[in-house]
């Protein structure tokens, strides 16, 4: 390509030198143009095919880039989804209580801290906390006890900076045990707060 440009330049310089001489010498120019013209057409055809090849390559490259970009987007969406699921699972961790008590255990405070972090990282999320009781307590009193368990978790989270308007509370009393057994192991499981994301939980960021 570069060499071809130099040849053209050389020819032009030679033609200019010839023009500087006598006029009759201008006649051979068309003659010289004959073989010159046929050479240019070939060059042009060659150039065109090269250009087409170049465009094809560019198109393929663009397509490839597009495909890669799409793949990356899909991969990253999947990654985000996996992250959301992990965060959601983390968020659903129960906290537990002693019999007829609604105070937060020291080791459950760490679980609540995690939830606070998740809510801070995902400011669109609203949740509900539902308190549950074991079967031993009085039926009706347990509704109040479950409520107090939910409220104490909410108080912990609001005191750690979460807006109270983002947390609703509810109580199941002893009506919805997760373990139907009648022993201390089952009762311990059933004395809990459950955490449900009410809205804004489609995509969750890691805290």
């Amino acid at each position, binding site marked *: 390509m570069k060499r071809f440009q130099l040849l053209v330049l050389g020819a032009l310089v030679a033609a200019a030198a010839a023009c500087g001489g006598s006029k009759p010498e201008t006649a051979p120019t068309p003659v010289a143009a004959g073989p010159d013209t046929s050479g240019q057409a070939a060059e042009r055809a060659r150039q065109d095919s090269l250009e087409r090849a170049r465009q094809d390559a560019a198109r393929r490259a663009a397509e490839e880039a597009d495909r890669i970009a799409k793949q990356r987007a899909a991969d990253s969406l999947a990654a985000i989804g996996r992250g959301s699921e992990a965060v959601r699972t983390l968020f659903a961790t129960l906290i537990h209580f002693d019999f007829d008590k609604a105070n937060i255990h020291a080791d459950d405070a760490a679980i609540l801290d995690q939830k606070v972090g998740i809510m801070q990282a995902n400011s669109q999320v609203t949740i509900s906390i539902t308190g549950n009781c074991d079967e031993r307590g009085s039926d*009706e009193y347990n509704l109040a006890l479950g409520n*107090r368990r939910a*409220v104490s978790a909410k108080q912990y989270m609001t005191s750690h900076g979460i807006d*109270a308007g983002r947390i609703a509370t*509810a*109580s199941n009393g002893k009506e919805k045990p997760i373990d139907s057994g009648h022993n201390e192991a089952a009762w311990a499981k059933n004395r809990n707060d459950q955490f449900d994301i009410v809205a804004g939980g489609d995509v969750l960021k890691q805290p």
Partner: protein
Amino acid sequence: MRRAAPLPLVLVALALGPAARPAAAQDTTRIDRGVRIGIIYRPGVRPGLVVLPVAAAVPDSVRAIIARDLDYSDRFELITLPGGDSIRLAAPAAPTASAAPASGATAASAGGRTGTKPTSGAAAALGLNYPLYQALGADFAVALAPTKADSTIVTVHDVAAGGVRREFRVHLPPATAPSFRMAVHRVADRILDAALGAAGTAASRVLFVMDGKVYAIDQDGAELLLVSASEHTALSPAWAPDGRHFAYMEFWQGRGRLFIEDLTTAKRSAVAVVGQALDFTPAFSPDAKTLAFSRANEEGTDIYTVNVKDGCCLQRLTVGRFADNLSPVYSPDGQRIAFVSTRAGAPQIYIMAADGTDQQLFAPFDYGVTGASYAPDWSPDGQSVAFHRDVGGTYQVFVLDVRTRAVRQLTSVGRNEDPTWAPDSRHMAFVSDRSGVRQLWIVDVETGRIRALETQGGARLPAWSPRLAETTTSTP
């Protein structure tokens, strides 16, 4: 055991009959007198009562229902006739007994009742052998006689006085009618009133919760009916004073909604309360205008009232802050409310004026010693409040004397909770697992006698109706 006891004793009495009661001698001569034991039968402090076998025209179930109701009243010693019901009832001296009741009883029933006059009117016609029944230990004998007019003459004999205590005519619906059993229960209550002047509980029902649904059952354990079915778990049924409506709570996503249902139509309406919260344990005021209930929200649980007559005027009665207040129940005069409060730590029974003022401890307790107390229910006579209390990790039913504030323990076997008074303020239904499953039992507070109301496991939160008058008992 209890049922079996009277029979051998009665036989002893029969053997001694001639010596103790010379007048009865000729009536007992046919009974073997070979055994003589030196005990005279008196069936405790309760008067004996026998429900006489009836002619075929009155369905035997009427007699059976009435006999059971009178037994369940725990005010009589029911006398079982020796040899079952096949014993001859009429004395040989009264050959017209089988023909007489229709005319004689109808005439007597016109006045509604007769005095206790020996051998007067229908009693003479029936030819009741008073000395025989006296020898059997009966103080009262109840006769049921059909009439041509499709009604039944009920005669309550005062055996000791040797005459008719009262006689009345009842019209019973056909045995297939939904109102049949309650009509028979009402007869039993009239018999109790005739014999002892006491108001019974036969014509009453108990609401309770099973599998998240509200059921009704007659006090004798018959006529179990599902009265509220929805996909939401129901809790805490509470009767309106009319015996026709009841309030209850349903779970809606961790919230509690209150409803009032009409038993006769099965239609219900939501109680108009402001705001979304967990509302539970409804309780009608005696004038039926106000519903008190517990509301759990982020401030804890407190007691509110709402005017259910006009659907307005939510009012807050307690401000718990760091304590819960719940389970309100009105005194029968509507002036006071007993409730549960955790203001001293563990839940205990408190009392306040119906407007929320003058809140104070009701059932005394030793701080740190007495177990937590729950679920008060005020007796219809106003004298007692029943509740359940933690005793050694399980629950027992206690009764608080309102005047003296003395507390006594009523149960001791198994776990017993959620007592509800019968309209006679003497019986009480409660939940117990003494049989191995949680089911409803009835105790007579005066004698301590206990019977199972129903035998299905999982029944709880019973609520005993007021006495059910004629117009309020049609089945839904």
